[in-house]
């Protein structure tokens, strides 16, 4: 077999090749006892019993290979006189017997055969078990490590392919993404870029660019002209590094002081998997895997200071193998370098593009300084080495993107509103207002037109019939409850009815619970030509006041405050022949019919209201609770003469046109959207 095969052991159970020092099979866990198997010991895989260990120890004494010839010959005598025989063996054959065997023999002699030997065997078994566990764990770790390395290699290849993507213009993928994030800035930058610059632009950062970014990130503390600190420290702490560096390079090493916020890797990123952690030299995480990266401002004396960290960074840069260990670790580090996914931040992209624009105006002096810095950067990092401040993990990039989106959306509306105020809506509203005004003005100028010949509505006919039956001297209680805005409509309906009743000799009593009706109701008062002197009484308490005056009686101790205000007190409806409610509120009419009228069921109730209330009042008329009412344009000769037919028709036509315009506008918008969708498709 080959040399490799000689170093491996085959598992008797599953055939898995295991390391020579493995005690258990890494595949099936079978105990591999061959290494520590002894002659005449059954290696069946079972845990050795104390008795078996004792036998093993005893056999060591009896083994012919481990004992000399004299002892084997006098074995019987030795069992009878163990001490004397042992002394002779130690004295006579000390040079030929191995040391460990001598110690085992001595231990065996010291312990009796009844129980001490068992204890020794158990201790030995424990020791063996601990060793086995550690070796098995080590073997397992090696296997897991190999699996990780293989998977990381595959990921590295994928990422490498992604980062190497270059479009037809030669723009790398990562720069294209940055430009997508800042399209406006990109346009400006494109105008500045010349063709030569575009040709020189590569997906790899130049040393000058990195140097400029270092200077901007670190600020005034970064001074490449000063005496380097790294070199001195490195030379003093690590002579090997000092020997490797040339004097020229060491002379230009900058003072790279780590600011307090030097690293841009958040603390909560330490829970990232190992394969995502940067393993490049210069990364603080590389300083010690078991310790957190040194942070400036940390006063813990156990943590190395900034200068020490800088020394170690320089040491790692120049001798990465010193940190990683052997060649295998070096190879692993190179793989990690390749697979490490770095994503330049938006700020870096902007600065890079700004730097491109500044390139043509650079002087020779700056170029010389750039060459000098280039050498320095070469000492600091190779082409793959990037200072941590220039790096962003993917997770950090995502968080920054989320934050950017939040900032961009700040102050903007996230919930769509029903309609937005814009110039178009204002213009449309102006057109509507002008249209309405034109209609009203034209209708007023042209006059009322022909009188309407609409038939009298059924509630209006009932009201007319009911009022016609009233005799002279009967009292009509007029309840006012309307506002100034609707007074023009209400009064146009109520005035003819009241005038007709006044000519019939009917008496009126005007009451209201609305203070505004005290001055509005004056228009409804019968004309003085009829010889009626009427005033409007105020009923405090609204509907409760009406209820008090209709449902209650005066207590034995006298009149209540409400009764004192109203003439007649609780006999408000006692002397009334008819109640006429003049209100623009259907609720008031409804409440009156439901709360007040039941106390005087024989008293007929009429109502005069606006057209909006017609639908709400009509059910009470049909149920008989309301004897009749006027609302809107009830028709009839009297109403037709007062209505401006042309203005009414103009208003109705304008409303119809507006509704149709709304439908057409919506249909047109839908068609345009549909066409746009087709174009996109």
């Amino acid at each position: 077999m080959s040399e490799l095969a000689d170093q491996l052991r085959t598992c008797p159970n599953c055939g898995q090749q295991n390391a020579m020092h493995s005690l258990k099979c890494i595949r099936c866990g079978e105990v591999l006892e061959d290494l520590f198997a002894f002659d005449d010991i059954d290696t069946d895989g079972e845990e050795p019993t104390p008795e078996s260990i004792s036998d093993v120890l005893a056999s060591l004494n009896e083994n012919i290979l481990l004992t000399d010839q004299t002892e084997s010959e006098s074995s019987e005598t030795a069992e009878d006189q163990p001490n004397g025989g042992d002394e002779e063996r130690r004295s006579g054959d000390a040079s030929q017997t191995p040391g460990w065997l001598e110690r085992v023999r001595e231990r065996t002699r010291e312990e009796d055969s009844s129980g001490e030997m068992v204890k020794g065997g158990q201790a030995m078994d424990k020791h063996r078990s601990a060793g086995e566990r550690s070796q098995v764990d080590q073997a397992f770790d090696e296997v897991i490590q190999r699996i990780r390395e293989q998977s990381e290699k595959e990921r590295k290849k994928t990422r490498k392919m992604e980062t190497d993507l270059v479009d037809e213009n030669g723009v790398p993928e990562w720069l294209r993404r940055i430009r997508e994030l800042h399209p406006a800035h990109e346009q400006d930058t494109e105008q500045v870029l010349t063709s030569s610059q575009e040709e020189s632009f590569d997906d790899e950062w130049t040393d000058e660019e990195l140097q400029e970014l270092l200077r901007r990130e670190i600020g005034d503390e970064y001074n490449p002209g000063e005496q380097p600190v790294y070199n001195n420290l490195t030379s003093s702490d690590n002579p090997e590094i000092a020997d490797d560096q040339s004097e020229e390079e060491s002379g230009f090493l900058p003072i790279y002081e780590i600011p307090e916020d030097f690293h841009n890797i958040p603390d909560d990123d330490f829970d990232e998997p190992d394969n995502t952690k940067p393993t490049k030299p210069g990364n603080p995480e590389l300083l010690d895997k078991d310790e957190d990266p040194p942070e400036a401002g940390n006063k813990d004396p156990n943590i190395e200071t900034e200068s020490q960290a800088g020394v170690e960074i320089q040491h790692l840069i120049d001798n990465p193998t010193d940190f990683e260990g052997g060649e295998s670790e070096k190879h692993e580090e190179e793989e990690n370098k390749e697979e490490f996914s770095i994503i330049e931040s938006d700020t870096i992209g902007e600065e890079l593009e700004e730097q491109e624009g500044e390139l043509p105006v650079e002087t020779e002096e700056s170029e010389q300084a750039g060459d000098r810095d280039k050498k320095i950067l070469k000492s600091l990092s190779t082409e793959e080495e990037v200072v941590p401040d220039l790096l962003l993990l993917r997770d950090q990039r995502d968080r920054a993107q989320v934050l950017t989106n939040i900032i961009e959306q700040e102050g903007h509306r996230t919930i769509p509103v029903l309609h937005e105020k814009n110039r178009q809506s204002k213009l449309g509203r102006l057109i509507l207002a002008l249209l309405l005004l034109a209609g009203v003005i034209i209708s007023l100028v042209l006059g009322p037109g022909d009188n309407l010949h609409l038939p009298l509505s059924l509630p209006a006919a009932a009201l007319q019939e009911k009022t016609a039956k009233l005799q002279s001297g009967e009292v009509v209680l007029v309840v006012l409850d309307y506002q100034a805005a609707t007074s023009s409509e209400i009064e146009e309906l109520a005035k003819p009815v009241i005038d007709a009743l006044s000519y019939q000799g009917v008496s009126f009593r005007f009451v209201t619970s609305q203070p505004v009706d005290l001055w509005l109701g004056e228009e409804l008062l019968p004309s003085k030509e009829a010889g009626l002197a009427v005033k409007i009484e105020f009923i405090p308490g609204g509907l409760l006041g009406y209820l008090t005056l209709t449902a209650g009686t005066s207590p034995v101790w006298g009149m209540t405050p409400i009764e004192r205000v109203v003439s007649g007190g609780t006999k408000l409806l006692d002397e009334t022949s008819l109640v006429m409610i003049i209100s623009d509120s259907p609720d008031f009419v409804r409440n009156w019919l439901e709360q007040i009228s039941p106390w005087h069921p024989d008293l007929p109730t009429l109502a005069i209201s606006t057209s909006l209330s017609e639908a709400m009042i009509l059910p009470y008329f049909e149920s008989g609770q309301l004897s009749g009412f006027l609302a809107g344009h009830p028709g009839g000769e009297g109403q037709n003469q007062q209505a401006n037919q042309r203005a009414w028709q103009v208003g109705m036509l304008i409303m119809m046109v507006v509704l149709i315009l709304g439908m057409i506008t919506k249909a047109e918008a839908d068609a345009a959207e549909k066409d746009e969708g087709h174009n996109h498709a």
Partner: protein
Amino acid sequence: MVVIAAVSGILFLAALFFQPITSSYLNVVLNWAIVLTAITLLVAISNLVITHLRYIAVGRRGFLFSLVFIATFAATFVFGILRGSDDTQYLRWIKAIQLPLETALLGLLALVMMSAAIKIFRVRGWSILTVSFGLSALLFLFLNLGFFPIAQNSTLFVVVTALQKLPVVGARGLLIGAALGAVIAALRVLFGQVVENE
């Protein structure tokens, strides 16, 4: 508070049902309610005046409107006290201010309604609600124009009358719903089911 409301409701119901024995007690209870309502109105007015006075004192943004309010309120109150609420000149003076204001507001309401009529389809889109609203509005506007002698055609008159019953149907549904809601609310008050913060 819940107990007071429940007891008051029960007593009021008893006073209503046991007429005319309890009519005098009903009168007293209603007077209490009216007086309490008037007091709350006075508290509200005083709170409003104090608030606007505070705005004026601290120079809050828009305090000029508060100044106008305080001035008009004081003038109305003083003239009302001095001349009395029955004075004709006083009533005409208030009417000359209030009537054009409210009429202008109603005219603006008409303009807003027209604007809403245009935007309802653009904002709400095509739905059963918007389409039915638009068609019904057009229909009733057309019928109310008075261009066509509907009453002369008996068949058309029946159809139009049936259509005009539709608003009444909706109004009846609203009234029945409001009545049921009022009954449930009253029962909750009577049985103490109303939470205090409601």
